[in-house]
């Protein structure tokens, strides 16, 4: 077998990774069709991509990238420094619709030196710059094909886009003129199945070869028991948290936030909502990251103490609040469990289930919520706690200063210390209830090798996938 059918939950709304926030765009296209100057590997490390190498000036303000020679886009045009300048300038332009415009905020200027080298000047040193350039939102696109990129994506990757039957599937074929190691698979089809029942049925009926991000963890034991399938349970960058509106009473009171955190039985949530899949966390940081600090003890399940804390805070009779939930089952099921646990300590959380659009409008933009559950899947995103405008509205000057220092620091050891400090601060401030690191289950047919286990970024990288036998 030289082709593959991979199912993922969500269909990309369009195919422009530089113009939309939807993760599904990256899931399908990242590394397969589009590449950036640097790229993520399966373990989350950042390595060279289209840039063969780079030099960083001593003040840390200028990055000079040397590009691979002989790279062409799928339409046959060459990829050179002009395309890099075009892509970066387009992403940071005034009228840019790039969803991660912040990644480019520090760029002062992009200068073409010769067709294979380009210099990027920053306004301030940024320890994360190479990391930022690995994001799917920073891939290199060409001015020739930019017009129709949303429906006909043309990149430099090992697969070329061929067809998209909206609502059903998207097809890729191998790029035989790929500049790097060519893919083993000749063709790949992505199917989009969000309904958990349909997902189960599709895998069971062997309609798909692999399902990345299988939506129903309760069915995984069945696949594990079935010799036709293999189950890979990997880590994601998704810290799943019970977010609290830090500016809205009573959550502006740290005692209340602590009480909520202690009222939650993480294990029950992981068992009940995720059927055991997921790693408990005590702060907003991925456990598989070397800089992770285990702070679970700060919020061990203790409903008696939670009730005491509430009394101390003046809410002996409890209070009522809202719990607004986006569609994924970790949120919907987790929400029901949390509501029931909170009810046990006297807090009435009224559940409302929202579609993503409404969640973004009401919770994320409108900040009209008491509690919510969401998985923050962006890699290394503890920086959001430095933004008092961010939806949970944590406003701590000390923490903000800490982040400024961190951004300007490039020394790894110092960075580790600073990150540990940051993790401890938010954990002890009980900014949010930290639940678990989202697991990403992949169900694949036996004999399929080379799929990513973890999800350092949203991607179904097929370039290294092979069938055994």
């Amino acid at each position, binding site marked *: 077998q030289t082709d593959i059918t991979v199912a993922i939950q969500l*269909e990309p*709304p*369009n195919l*422009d990774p530089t113009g*939309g*926030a*939807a993760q599904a765009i990256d899931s399908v296209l990242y590394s397969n069709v589009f590449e950036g100057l640097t790229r993520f590997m399966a373990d989350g490390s950042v390595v060279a991509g289209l840039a063969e190498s780079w030099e960083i000036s001593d003040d840390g303000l200028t990055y000079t990238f040397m590009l691979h020679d002989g790279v062409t886009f799928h339409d046959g045009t060459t990829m050179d420094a002009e395309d890099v300048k075009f892509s970066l300038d387009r992403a940071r332009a*005034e*009228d*840019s*619709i*790039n*969803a*991660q*415009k*912040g990644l480019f905020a520090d760029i002062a200027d992009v200068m073409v030196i010769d067709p294979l080298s380009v210099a990027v000047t920053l306004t301030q040193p940024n320890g994360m710059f190479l990391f930022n350039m690995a994001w799917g939102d920073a891939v290199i696109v060409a001015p020739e094909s930019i017009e129709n990129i*949303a*429906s006909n994506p043309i990149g430099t990757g090992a697969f070329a886009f061929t067809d998209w*039957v*909206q*609502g*059903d*599937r998207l097809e890729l074929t191998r790029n035989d003129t790929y500049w790097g190691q060519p893919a083993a698979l000749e063709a790949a089809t992505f*199917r*989009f*199945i969000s*309904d958990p*029942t*349909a997902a*189960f*049925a*599709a895998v*069971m*009926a062997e*309609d798909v070869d692999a399902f990345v991000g299988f939506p129903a963890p309760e069915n995984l034991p069945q696949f594990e028991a079935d010799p036709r399938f293999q189950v890979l349970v990997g880590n994601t960058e998704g810290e799943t948290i019970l977010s609290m509106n830090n500016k809205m009473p009573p959550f502006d009171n740290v005692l209340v936030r602590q009480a909520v955190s202690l009222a939650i039985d993480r294990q029950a949530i992981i068992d009940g909502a995720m059927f055991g899949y997921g790693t408990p966390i005590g702060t907003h940081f991925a456990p598989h990251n070397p800089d992770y600090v285990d702070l679970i003890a700060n919020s061990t399940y203790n409903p008696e103490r939670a009730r005491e804390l509430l009394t101390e805070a003046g809410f002996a009779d409890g209070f009522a609040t809202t719990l607004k939930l986006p*569609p994924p089952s970790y949120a919907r099921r987790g929400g029901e469990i949390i509501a029931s646990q909170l009810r046990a300590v006297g807090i009435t959380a009224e559940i409302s289930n929202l*579609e*993503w*659009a*409404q969640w*973004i*409008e009401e919770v*994320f*933009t409108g900040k009209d919520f008491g509690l919510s559950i969401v998985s923050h899947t962006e890699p290394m995103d503890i920086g959001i706690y430095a933004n008092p405008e961010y939806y949970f509205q944590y406003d701590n000057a000390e923490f903000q200063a800490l982040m400024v220092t961190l951004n300007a620091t490039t020394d790894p050891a110092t960075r580790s210390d600073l990150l540990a400090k940051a993790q401890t601060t938010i954990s002890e401030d009980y900014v949010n209830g930290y639940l678990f690191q989202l697991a990403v289950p992949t169900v694949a047919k036996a004999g399929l090798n080379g799929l990513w286990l973890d999800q350092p970024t949203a991607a179904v990288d097929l370039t290294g996938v092979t069938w055994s036998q």
Partner: protein
Amino acid sequence: MIRYIASRLLSLTLSLIAASIVIFAVIEVIPGDPASFMLGVNARADTLAALREQMGLNDPLPLRYFNWVTGMLTGDFGTSWTYKTPVADLVNDRIWVSLPLAIYALFISTIIAFPAGIIAASRRGGMGDVSIMGATQLGVAIPNFWFAMILVLIFAIKLRWFSAGGFPGWDNPFLALKSLTLPAVALALPQAAILARIMRSSLLDNLGEDYIRTARAKGLTRRQALWRHAVRNALIPVLTIIGLQFSFLLAGGIIIEQIFFLPGLGRLIFQSISARDLIVVESVVMLLVFVVIVVNFAVDLAYAAVDPRLRSRA
């Protein structure tokens, strides 16, 4: 006849205008800003504004309605905000799933319902009647999504006769029909139950009419009187139901399309509603309403073919 058609056409047009106003009014008040939804969590205000401008969300409502309607009249249904492709293309892709599915389901429901209704009516009160009517009672009571779940469990997962869902395209018509079979059955059975009941009661009404007695007095057997005289008269109410069912099947497959992950119109609407892709929602709902109204019109014409009284009244 021409006058009849003309007056029906006039009321058809008025209905379409009324429907378009209702649809536009209803859909424009949906909360949820499509621009911010598309751009997601980290969108910045200026980016949002740029997208809003680009999508024409800043025009006054009447102008937007006018543009929408005139666009539709010229075959331009606008461009999907999320898919970035013309809605007409999206619909064109999806209709080749939903339309065949609806026709297939209607076909199944009709070939089950007609014989069942006729047998039940001709053996009124007998064992056949009682068991068929019992089965239809059950058929009406079973929610089609539950039935679909059970069908998938049995025929796709356990027996693996059919695929659990998805649609391979019409390149291979056999595979395409095969993949539509389970969904069509799930949709058709409750409809067949309803249709069989209507067929039976309509036939019984007609069998009680004087003209059946006249036909019997001519020497027709009970069976001949049923087939030659009662069935055609009984078709009149049945046609209405078939028309209604067709419209229902076209749109009502939403849940079924979801369960079998078929890329049909129903799923398009469902996704578009979640994505606040208003242009798509508006246009597809309008299309469905259009189909319903046109089907009703066609049913009216079919009446005239079956019933000469209507033909000459016109």
